[in-house]
């Protein structure tokens, strides 16, 4: 039994949750020394003690025993992560990702899902051209909005992992093919708008295609050029110029504020993405950000100025239902219905309490799965 592993995991989970040692040992009714010995790997605690600690930390006891994983092909720019707590949050995200990824690949394997990564040979193109090419590959019409980005990116053989973490300015990251990926990880923290989450997927897709050599764990500094290219790719992937102009012409009779809101609703992008495109196309000047906020407040009585990136407020914002990532659910459903996994295992993979998992499986019977 690796007591250092156990202690390290408990320590990480405690710090991520913002507890000090005293919070935990007092609530778990164990002595300071005993708790300290556990964290430092100096003792092998009884399971009953670990259960108490898990309850205080609101953690799954299983996670105390999981061996950490090292990703070798990862693009996670963390130069803004300074504190020990944030470093541990990053570690926890990666541990959870590793568990999720193992389960995802195992589900694929047992149901014989052959989906592979399609875009390995796309490179050396400027972002706008690449965005066009990827859209073409996905058989999207030039003026077709992307209704379901998760499903679309899944079709390319890229997995989407959602995590929820209050980690400053971390919207997402990605894992390369060599680590059983590719995976795009998206932060769904409550203050990050759905529009931003959608954009993050497209942004990381850009990195996966254009910056393959940047998938190194030791690189933590953001490269301004790479970020700019990924942003350009994302904007043109979600909202190609041709259709942007076409949509704008269609609503040219509306007040200019409503034209922008109309476009943002169609393409599920932030209002700032629409403003940026208007600037890029020389259709407005750079004062548009200020003018939009002033005029929007006048028209809709909501102040956008008080909210700045990363947690900007979206006028006419998207709903959770605009951003659904259900691929793993589908794999689990197939595996469960073929009796390849237990109900309990399904609940573990989807991170649902057993009773909710039972209700979910019952609900699956209401509409039969239209398999191929």
């Amino acid at each position, binding site marked *: *039994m*690796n007591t250092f592993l*156990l202690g390290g995991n408990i320590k990480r989970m405690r710090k991520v949750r913002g507890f000090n040692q005293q919070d935990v040992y007092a609530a778990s009714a164990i002595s300071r020394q005993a708790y300290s010995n556990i964290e430092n790997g100096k003792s*092998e*605690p*009884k*399971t*009953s003690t*670990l*259960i108490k600690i*898990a309850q205080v930390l609101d953690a799954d*006891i*299983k*996670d*105390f*025993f*999981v*061996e950490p994983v090292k990703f070798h092909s990862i693009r996670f720019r963390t130069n803004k992560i300074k504190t020990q707590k944030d470093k541990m949050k990053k570690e926890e995200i990666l541990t959870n990702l590793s568990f999720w990824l*193992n389960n995802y690949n*195992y589900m694929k*394997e*047992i149901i014989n899902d052959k989906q592979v990564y399609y875009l390995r040979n796309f490179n050396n193109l400027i972002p706008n051209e690449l965005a066009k090419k990827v859209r073409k590959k996905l058989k999207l019409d030039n003026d077709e909005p992307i209704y379901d980005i998760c499903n679309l990116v899944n079709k390319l053989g890229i997995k989407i992992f959602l995590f929820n973490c209050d980690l400053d300015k971390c919207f997402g990251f990605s894992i390369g093919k060599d680590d059983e990926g590719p995976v795009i990880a998206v932060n769904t923290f409550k203050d990050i708008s759905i529009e931003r989450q959608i954009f993050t997927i497209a942004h990381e897709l850009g990195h996966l295609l254009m910056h393959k050599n940047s998938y190194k764990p030791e690189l933590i500094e953001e490269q301004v050029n790479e970020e700019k290219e990924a942003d350009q790719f994302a904007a043109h992937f979600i909202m190609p110029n041709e259709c942007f102009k076409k949509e704008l012409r269609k609503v040219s009779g509306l007040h200019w504020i409503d034209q922008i809101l109309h476009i943002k609703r169609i393409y599920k992008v932030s209002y700032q993405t629409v403003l940026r495109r208007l600037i890029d196309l020389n259709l407005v000047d750079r004062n548009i950000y200020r003018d939009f906020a002033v005029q929007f407040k006048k028209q809709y009585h909501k102040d956008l100025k008080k909210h700045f990136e990363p947690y900007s407020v979206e006028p006419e914002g998207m709903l959770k239902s605009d951003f659904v990532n259900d691929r793993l659910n589908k794999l689990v459903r197939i595996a469960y219905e073929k*009796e*390849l*996994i*237990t*109900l*309990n*295992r399904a*609940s*573990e993979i989807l991170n649902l*309490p*057993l*009773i909710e998992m*039972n209700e979910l*499986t*019952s609900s699956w*019977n209401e509409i039969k799965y239209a398999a191929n």
Partner: protein
Amino acid sequence: MLQIDKSLIFDANILIDFYRISKEIFKFLYDLSVIMKVSDVTFLKVEQINESELENLHIEIIESPAKMLFESANRIKSSLAFDDYVSFLHAKENNFILSTNDKTLKTYAQSQNVDSLWGLEIILFIEINNKISKEKAIKLFEKLKKVNNRITDDIEKEFLKILFE
């Protein structure tokens, strides 16, 4: 004749299923001198029952050694959940009967030569031992079918066949 001659260890689902359909099942098993156990980590999954209730139902919580938890937590490719595997290991190491309503877990246990028992077999056992009538057994079956969506018509036929044999 159906016999339970060793301790039973429940998985999480069967514990929840029986608790939802009739707590009396546990009482009848106790009356028939069946020793009932659940692993500590399985019990954590069962939010509906607290420790004193479990005690009243005469179900003993057994502590899992850290080594067992470590082994169970690091099985990457597994059809079983962490606590399914812990229950399986307890059954294997202590010669218990693993009681489950999950075919995948039962099949795994059988493949490893660990005795296992369906929830429906437990209902049949308490009927055979005159703790409940055949009508009551059918009622329990129907209740179980409502909460367990994997009970098929074939299973129902088999259950009724054995019940009226």
